[in-house]
């Protein structure tokens, strides 16, 4: 098992390098220039040249990439060009907010998704099943920023239960968490339902029925347990997507976080900040996949057996 984890971690290194090249190229090749956001009306061309030289923007792209990568290896994310602060401080301020939002949303999609999936399986092909499947499909196809605004209208403006926006209290987390959580529920519901239907057709379930166990107990204790393996994988894969999906929701709810930081930096073409944010999101996807694989190995003895 340890050898497996180490091997998987080592495999992340080339992926990380490839991702870093792609991120670097995307932001440097799209048109736009951070220096345009820095120079103010009235300053001269010398000013501009000085700024360009200070941030090394006059060097060739491969050179700039190597400088950035060398910094990354030392744990130095560079200094934001427009924001004029160390990128690591900006990220450190944003990350806890994003993690809280992402983590809670993941819990919501997992909780709601598994419950609804199990219920849908119980009443398979009946009206309840169809209502659940239709409902979650609708929820996941609505764009999150719009769903967010609808949530604000209903829960804050009409009902007045939660604050409209901000990040001052725990209550302000509820609406954004629900928005992201609900959007991700559909997949979990579907996978839970299908996996449970498949597991219910296994021989051991027939045996349990023959032994005379109550059907509800068989479903929850045995079938659901088996069905959770693919659900865990799906959830782990979603870690990265949830952080990415939080970008627009953070803007709608005016929450600080990686998303608001990224959008602001993109508009200003603040290269180091955009690179660091995208790298964080890419790492979340990579680590999510890794965690998913390890979890699967941990809960499924068959996978473990194959590793040896």
């Amino acid at each position: 098992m340890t050898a497996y984890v180490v091997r998987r971690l080592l495999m992340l290194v080339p992926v990380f390098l490839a991702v870093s090249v792609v991120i670097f190229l995307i932001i440097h090749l799209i048109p736009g220039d951070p220096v345009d956001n820095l120079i103010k009306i009235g300053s001269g061309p010398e000013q501009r040249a000085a700024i360009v030289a200070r941030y090394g923007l006059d060097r060739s792209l491969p050179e700039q990439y190597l400088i950035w990568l060398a910094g990354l290896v030392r744990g130095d994310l560079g200094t934001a060009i427009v924001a004029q602060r160390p990128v690591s401080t900006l990220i450190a301020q944003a990350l806890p907010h994003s993690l809280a939002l992402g983590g809670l949303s993941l819990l919501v999609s997992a909780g709601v998704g598994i419950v609804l999936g199990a219920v849908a399986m119980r009443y398979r092909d009946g009206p309840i099943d169809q209502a659940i499947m239709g409902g979650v499909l609708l929820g996941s196809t609505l764009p999150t920023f719009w769903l967010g605004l609808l949530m604000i209208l209903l829960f804050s403006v009409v009902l007045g239960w939660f604050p409209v926006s901000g990040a001052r209290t725990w209550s302000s987390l509820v609406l954004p968490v629900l928005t992201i959580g609900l959007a991700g529920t559909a997949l979990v519901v579907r996978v839970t339902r299908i996996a449970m239907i498949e597991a219910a057709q296994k021989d051991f379930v027939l045996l349990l029925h023959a032994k005379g166990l109550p059907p509800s107990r068989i479903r929850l204790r045995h079938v659901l347990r088996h069905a959770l393996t693919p659900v865990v994988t799906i959830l782990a894969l979603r870690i990265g997507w949830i952080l990415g999906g939080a970008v627009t929701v953070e803007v709608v709810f005016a929450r600080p976080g990686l998303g608001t930081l990224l959008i602001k930096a993109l508009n200003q073409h603040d290269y180091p900040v955009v690179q660091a944010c995208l790298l964080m999101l890419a790492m979340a996807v990579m680590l999510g996949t890794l965690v998913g694989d390890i979890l699967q190995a941990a809960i499924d003895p068959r996978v473990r057996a194959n590793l040896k």
Partner: protein
Amino acid sequence: MRKLLAKAALAAGICFAGLCAAVPAVFAQEATIVFNTNEVGAPTYNPIKASMLNAATGLIYDMLVEQDADLSFHPHLAESWEEAPDGMSWVFHLKKGVTFHNGEPFNAQTIPAWLELFKESDNAYMSEAIDKVEVVDDYTVKFAMKHPDPNLLYNLSSTFMAIPEPKAYKALGDKFGVTEAIGTGPYKLETFNVGSETVLVRNDAYTWGSPLSKNTGPAKIQKLTFREIPEESTAFLELKTGGVDMLLGVPTDFMGELKSEPNIALLTLPGSEVAYMSINVTSAPFTDIKVREAAAFAINQQEILDSIYGGVGSVANTFLISALPESQVDPKYLVKYDPERSKTLLDEAGWKMADDGIRAKDGTPLKVSLWTQSDTSFRRLSEVVQAQLKAVGIDAEITSFDSSSIRDQYKSGKQQLAVRSYEWNNADIVDWFFGGDRLGYPNTSMFNDPKAEELRKKAMSGSANSEQRQANFKTYHEYVLSQFPMAPIYQPTVNVAYNKDRLVLPEHIRGTEVGPATFMDMTVKE
């Protein structure tokens, strides 16, 4: 399963507890204000190094000089000043009894120490004309100038030249303006979370307010919370539900919606923005001045004001905002809708009307490109401009880019017409957008005219005092207008909305925006 339910119940409990805790003590004198969306994400309150500062900066620091709504200058930390007739020296008499938030005195010694810090920053050009600072006595300083700078008072009134405490500035290094910000202003920085909120508390020792506010003593509201909300709909809903008390920037689109709210008051202040259409003078057919003039006179400013902006704001007939004296040009230079003039000019230039409604010359139709930013407001304006050009027989095709990449596109010089806007309240903006050494961007018109360059040089560095500068800039502005490198369109207002059940604002808003002068006089209804 049961565990999950328990967790959900726990989460709900936490949320409810949070909700109860969130109900604020409404009776304390506090107010929550939302920054304009273009100020969201300002990373620091360090006026010396920042490339962007928000509205709270002017409350933490004071400037030597204040500028009023009519753009006149008024004393603040400088009680009075004298300019030498040749513009080569300035004497400033400083206000006595002023202290910084950390107790350090503000006096003549502060000024050279502060300007010294300024030299290392990207904003150094603002004080570049000052050669030496001489401390005459404890409350008098004399600036010896390298060359006359009639724009000095304007620069000194900018928040970038707000005065931080030099000792704390040095001691805190990069943290200054982030964890702590020490100025002489009516409010002290309590907490600052970038991209989220800034909390300011009243400076009780403050007795040196500028003459722009009635109240010169400590401010009336004890605590101000400034929030950053990037999404305008969210900010609007916060104001509507009472989550915040004031929005410093409301898009014109929301005005109708806000007017129907009984507890919300709206203020429209003259802004410093001008929307215009730049015309590339190096791209055929606009190399012909007649075609440029025709395009400029095809724009119906009044129709745009009435139909797109519901009459809020005013038309633009010159390149500068109406508040600037340099915008008062000879009426013959005003660019005002005149379709007949436009049609005659096109006929003279050889572009004859064809059957399809598009003019043509030697078989080539009058087809041009019209660039703009992809934001909805720019697109909508561009579509109306497109229709108005069509009415005189010019076929303009709209291409839109995102706000950052359009600048790179301009640098290619391939643009023909472009709908854009700027925000600035000084005549030197003419130099910025039409100077021959900035072709592409910011000079999107690619305007490089020997006579204009001569007038520009005279306006930028050939004036000893502000009257001369004004006259020189007016002449330069008039000449630029006569060459039609652009067509002015519209001057938007700055719209501020506040909850009138909570806040009382002074009757007249003084200063160039809802800023320190207004916050000094503002009170919360008990």
